[in-house]
């Protein structure tokens, strides 16, 4: 086994990882930094984000307004110190991206243009038409290429963290092209591996979003925070799960039931107006919109299709010019994947698993509970998203907290002792585990079979509305799948680009993440944001104004504890959309 030593490893090369790598390179050019990613950086899932990235820019807007929108949107589960810092640092980070070439859409005067977004009281969403994530990722990657001292391990899969003396000292990675297992030793490691939407079958997430970093940190003893909060985006295409951006609604699109009725008016989201009203109706928060869909379905007012029930997203009244200038990707996706033109036809949509609000618990600098291990982006939970993320906060989060994690890891690495050769024993053990799996022949089930069953179990028991019985059933199925995983078989024993081996390692992560999600959801006997318990329909601030911290117990079981939420200035209150607050 080869062993290489760097000062810092960045695991993942999407928005957060690239921003962290640039921050490291700028903060301490003398550090030897390596970026390890299971895909080429430009394939990372940041690429798929569409609508935009939030940062206060208008004179009539304020940091407090952005903070309040975020905190009320998150149903008061956000850590408010993190939110305050986030909204303050957001404009500078977004401007940096502008300086690095991001093709932001502009006003006629040449200023950066902003659009409204769900749950936001002012226009503060910067956008590059409706391919914001794509442009953000490519701008970051191309800018990172300028930092010549960065080492790139493209298409290396990290399967284990190296931990000794109570600190993270590196990782084990498989070089996919050769199947070689490498020990990558380092003084600090930053997780930037993204989310875990593939725990579910119907998701906007790319095939690569398998919760790898969450599982790695969890196995290494770090806590996973608020894992019961999975965001359903209200407008996914029914068969593919492809996202139709919230920008379609912020530009004026309507959600209609089978009778052509703007049904959101029945769910305390305000009255229908011809023009979009901020924090109302179609510009309500995602959790409330997805929940309204379920209720509408129960009333029999959705439309049955061969791929489940849908409602209609209607943007025809925006006209071809607006659609082509503001929402060209929406049109492209509908034409390609739904064979319809949204200029002339309504789009069939339904809620779809989109974003994990929880993740590896970190402080404001991205430091996890495990010294030497940092995390930023969707893999992390700092937490600015609370129980429900507002659209366009996540891209900004990648930048703000990617930069902070990079700078903090640089400080840590400059002071930390070098990694100890003793951790190599763990790397040898991991190499053996992988080798044994490759050598296992006959018997056992396919990885794909087990993955499908896991996704079915999650869809059945851990969806938009959950209850004790359904969650217990899901927990039992996940436990059973953990058993069966132990004797899973691979068809492919090859060392060269073995994607079945990768799928096996990913499934291992998915099972751990699913277990943490279910245990956290069982423990939270209230309804808040994206976590709706039909057996506990009300928010319960007395018992559950608290974060769930899921840790791995000594026997491998999930242990869930509660931790306090940081409240600075905004006491928990009612979430009000589409009307005046009751005084």
């Amino acid at each position, binding site marked *: 086994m080869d062993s290489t030593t760097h000062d810092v490893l960045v695991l993942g090369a999407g928005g957060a990882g690239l921003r962290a790598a640039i921050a490291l390179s700028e903060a301490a050019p003398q550090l030897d930094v390596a970026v390890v990613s299971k895909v080429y950086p430009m*394939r*990372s899932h940041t690429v*798929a984000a569409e609508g935009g990235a939030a940062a206060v820019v208008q004179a009539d807007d304020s940091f407090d307004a952005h903070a309040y929108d975020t905190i009320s949107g998150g149903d008061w589960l956000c850590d408010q110190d993190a939110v305050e810092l986030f909204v303050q640092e957001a404009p500078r980070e977004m401007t940096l991206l502008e300086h690095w*070439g991001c093709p*932001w859409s502009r006003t006629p005067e040449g200023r950066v243009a902003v659009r409204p977004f769900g749950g936001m009281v002012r226009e503060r969403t910067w956008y590059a038409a409706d391919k914001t994530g794509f442009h953000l990722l490519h701008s970051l990657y191309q800018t990172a290429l300028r930092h010549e001292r960065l080492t790139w391990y*493209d298409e290396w899969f990290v399967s284990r963290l190296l931990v000794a003396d109570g600190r993270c000292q590196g990782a084990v990675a498989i070089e996919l092209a050769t199947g070689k297992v490498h020990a990558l030793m380092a003084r600090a490691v930053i997780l930037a591996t993204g989310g875990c939407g593939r725990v579910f079958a119907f998701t906007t997430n790319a095939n690569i979003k398998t919760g790898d970093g969450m599982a790695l940190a969890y196995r290494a003893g770090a806590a996973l925070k608020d894992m019961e909060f999975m965001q359903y985006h209200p407008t996914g295409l029914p*068969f593919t799960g492809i996202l139709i951006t919230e920008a379609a609604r912020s530009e004026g699109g309507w959600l209609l039931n089978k009778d052509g009725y703007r049904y959101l008016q029945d769910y305390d989201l305000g009255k229908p107006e011809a023009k979009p009203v901020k924090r109302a109706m179609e510009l309500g928060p995602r959790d409330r919109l997805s929940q309204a869909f379920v209720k509408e379905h129960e009333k029999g007012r959705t439309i049955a299709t061969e791929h489940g029930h849908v409602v209609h997203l209607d943007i025809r009244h925006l006209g071809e010019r607006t659609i082509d200038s503001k929402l060209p990707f929406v049109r492209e996706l509908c034409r390609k994947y739904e064979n319809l033109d949204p200029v002339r036809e309504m789009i069939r949509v339904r809620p779809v698993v989109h974003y994990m609000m929880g993740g590896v618990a970190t402080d404001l600098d991205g430091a996890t509970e495990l010294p030497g291990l940092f995390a930023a982006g969707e893999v992390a939970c700092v937490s600015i998203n609370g129980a429900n993320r507002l659209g366009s906060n996540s891209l900004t989060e990648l930048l703000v907290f990617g930069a902070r994690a990079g700078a903090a890891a640089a400080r840590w690495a400059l002071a930390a002792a070098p990694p100890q050769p003793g951790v190599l024993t763990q790397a040898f053990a991991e190499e053996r585990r992988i080798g044994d799996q490759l050598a296992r022949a006959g018997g056992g089930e396919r990885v*794909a079979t087990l993955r499908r069953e896991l996704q079915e179990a999650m869809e059945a028991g851990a969806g938009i509305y959950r209850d004790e019985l359904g969650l217990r059933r899901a927990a039992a199925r996940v436990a059973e799948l953990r058993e069966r995983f132990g004797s899973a078989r691979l*068809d492919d024993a*090859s060392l060269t680009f073995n994607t079945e081996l990768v799928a096996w390692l990913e499934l291992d992560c998915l099972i751990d993440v699913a277990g943490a999600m279910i245990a956290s959801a069982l423990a939270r006997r209230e309804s808040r944001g994206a976590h709706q318990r039909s057996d506990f329909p009300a928010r319960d601030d007395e018992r559950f104004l608290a974060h769930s911290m899921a840790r791995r117990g000594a026997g491998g079981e999930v242990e869930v504890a509660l931790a306090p939420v940081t409240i600075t200035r905004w006491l928990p209150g009612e979430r009000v959309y589409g009307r005046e607050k009751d005084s």
Partner: protein
Amino acid sequence: MSETTIEIAVRRYRPEVEVEPSWQSYEVPCRREWMVLDGLNWIKDRLDGTLSYRWACRMGVCGSCGMMVNGDPTLTCAAYLKDLLPGPVRVEPLRGFPVVRDLVVDISDFVAKLASVKPWIVRAIEKSPDDGEYLQTPEQLADYKQYSMCINCLLCYSACPIYALEPEFVGPAALALAQRYNLDSRDEGAAERMEILSQHEGIWSCTFVGECSVVCPKHVDPAGAIQRYKLDAAADWVRSVLLPWGKR
């Protein structure tokens, strides 16, 4: 009624067990909304776990799943199986690149070339983010926007007859991206890039076959970018000959 099926013939290459590539055929369902990639996933998940290929987003934006389909460079997540009935559908690795295994090709050459054209904003003096954004009008944005839409899927390299013959050629996507920065009103790096690109392997190799622009799934038009580059380079040369002492 039995389900419509279609045959997918895959060009396979497993370096550990075979010296030469071979063909292997699979019968898969041909459902109305399935892309070629869905057919491959069916094979991988149900029939043969050894088949190797790349994919990620399944919405035509990550650029991972480019392959040759019936001889044409194709994004397999954006090509309907039903359009290829009655089949068989021939799927091969992207032409013009070394094959690592099955449908996976080695794209490290492109990544190195991308970095070589300095695909980032170059400025003599960089503004502090505290001083706000650079102004850029919608018209100035439109000057380069098209070239910024490249998803690095590399279909254009696969279609390019020059790249196949002269592997040193920088190639369509990297040249389009160089031009993307040259045309950006915030950038001052055109001269630096010109120095790199006016070498033989830079722009002059291109003979304007134009296949790159034909296959581009995002309408980036690399051929147009290269043509514009050549004109600029030629004008530069003329200026340097006529006004060797002056400011160019």
